[in-house]
């Protein structure tokens, strides 16, 4: 984090008007880094893990249905979260990967959901989401909204987005409901707009320069709620999936760039 700030400050110092140009300077800095996004390492591992026989059943994920039919990965990322007939739930990518890991490979989904981010099978999921997302790079978000449950989850997601609570009275909307604002030097996308939701939803999972880790969408939302001073959102809990539907539907038509590169 400190290193990043120093680098950003160095880039900015070359500009005459400091405050005005800070976002430009950061964008420039990111473009420099984007020449090689370290997320590619996660993608490569994810691709290998997809095919590798693993878990108590020693099976691969090659028959996993991410919504486009068993084994179809291309285009799946830009159409999630969506309704699944077999689980009778609206599921996001991570929730669906858990279903496949349990049903096909025999892993205990509940145990993985309780595992801290970056540890054990959670790190497997990080690799998988990087690869699955990369297979939809350049495709436009097109989340289905035909099932009643998908429509309901959009409405619930919007409600959750504006839900203010906790000691600081924060909602998602407190920081992400206006255009052109920032916290410190960090630009805040307005997630109620197509462009803002596209820039944000369409960039996670992302490699985070500050921590050297790849963060999934679930991990991103989890940290948002931490900074909102809320209690702990369950991994793939319904509120996180509803927010995913709200953001993903708002981002309709925007091309996915995930896995992205972030501060």
């Amino acid at each position: 984090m400190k290193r990043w700030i120093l680098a950003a400050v160095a880039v900015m110092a070359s500009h005459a008007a400091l405050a005005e140009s800070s976002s430009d300077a950061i964008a420039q800095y990111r473009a420099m880094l984007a020449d090689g996004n370290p997320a590619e390492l996660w993608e490569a591992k994810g691709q290998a893990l997809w095919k590798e026989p693993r878990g108590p059943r020693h099976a691969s994920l090659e028959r996993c249905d991410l919504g486009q039919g068993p084994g179809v990965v291309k285009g799946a990322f830009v159409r999630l979260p969506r309704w699944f007939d077999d689980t009778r739930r609206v599921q996001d990518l991570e929730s669906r990967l858990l279903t496949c890991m349990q049903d096909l490979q025999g892993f205990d989904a509940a145990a993985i959901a309780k595992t801290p981010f970056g540890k054990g099978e959670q790190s497997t999921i990080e690799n998988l989401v990087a690869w699955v997302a990369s297979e939809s790079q350049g495709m436009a978000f097109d989340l289905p909204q035909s099932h009643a449950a998908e429509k309901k989850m959009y409405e619930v997601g919007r409600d959750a987005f504006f839900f203010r609570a906790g000691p600081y009275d924060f909602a998602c909307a407190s920081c992400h409901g206006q255009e052109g604002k920032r916290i410190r030097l960090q630009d805040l996308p307005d997630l109620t707009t197509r462009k803002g939701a596209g820039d944000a939803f369409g960039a996670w999972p992302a490699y985070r320069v500050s921590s050297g880790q790849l963060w999934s969408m679930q991990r991103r939302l989890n940290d948002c709620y931490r900074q909102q001073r809320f209690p702990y959102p369950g991994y793939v809990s319904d509120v996180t999936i509803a927010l995913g539907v709200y953001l993903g539907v708002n981002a309709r038509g925007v091309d996915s760039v995930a896995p992205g590169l972030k501060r």
Partner: protein
Amino acid sequence: MSRTVDRTRTSLWLRSVAASAMTLAVALAGCESTPGAPGPGAATHAEATKIIDSSFSAHGQAGLDRLQQDALQKACSSPTPPSADTVKALEAAEAAKIVPPPDGRYLGDWRAGENLAQNGRGMTWSDKAEAPNGGNCYNCHQLSDKEISFGTLGPSLHHYGKGRGIEDPTSPQAMAIIRYTWGKLYDAKAGNACSIMPRFGAAHILTTKQMQDIMALLLDPNSPVNQ
């Protein structure tokens, strides 16, 4: 026709537009809360509340009680602002929570205030409950112009005291601004019900001493904010 008349007419027209918008807002709010006939908004909200309640668990100092909204949080959890009457009632209730510093001293040490303004920690599940909270000021506001890493969710507070003509913050002439600023810091919702600024005093985020130090940062002529 004179310009004054033009202006009066424009202002009357604006007022009537605002009034109809308000009537509409009241009418819409009325629709949603009609007993026995909840609209889709109310049904979704009930469903969302159920989903939110079942999705979180207590962690560190962040207990599930944090999901229990007070009347203000409830009223301000919509993309549309509450009715003018509701806003008035909420602001009055918040104003009643403001407590002046018990020792009568509004201004502390601006150096400690600057440290607090820089500090964005506090009250997350990963923060130690017994550790003092930061003021989070630079996250949303510009203060000293020496600090280039500042947020823009709130207005710039650079020259906060200087711009308000505060030369001697202990003088009687400064008292109105001092009280106003204390109130804003203690409970920003007293003047703007759905403000995104936390209620630093009323929600027990900062101590009296910490607020006195931030007051000095804003109002002391020697503070970097007023250079």
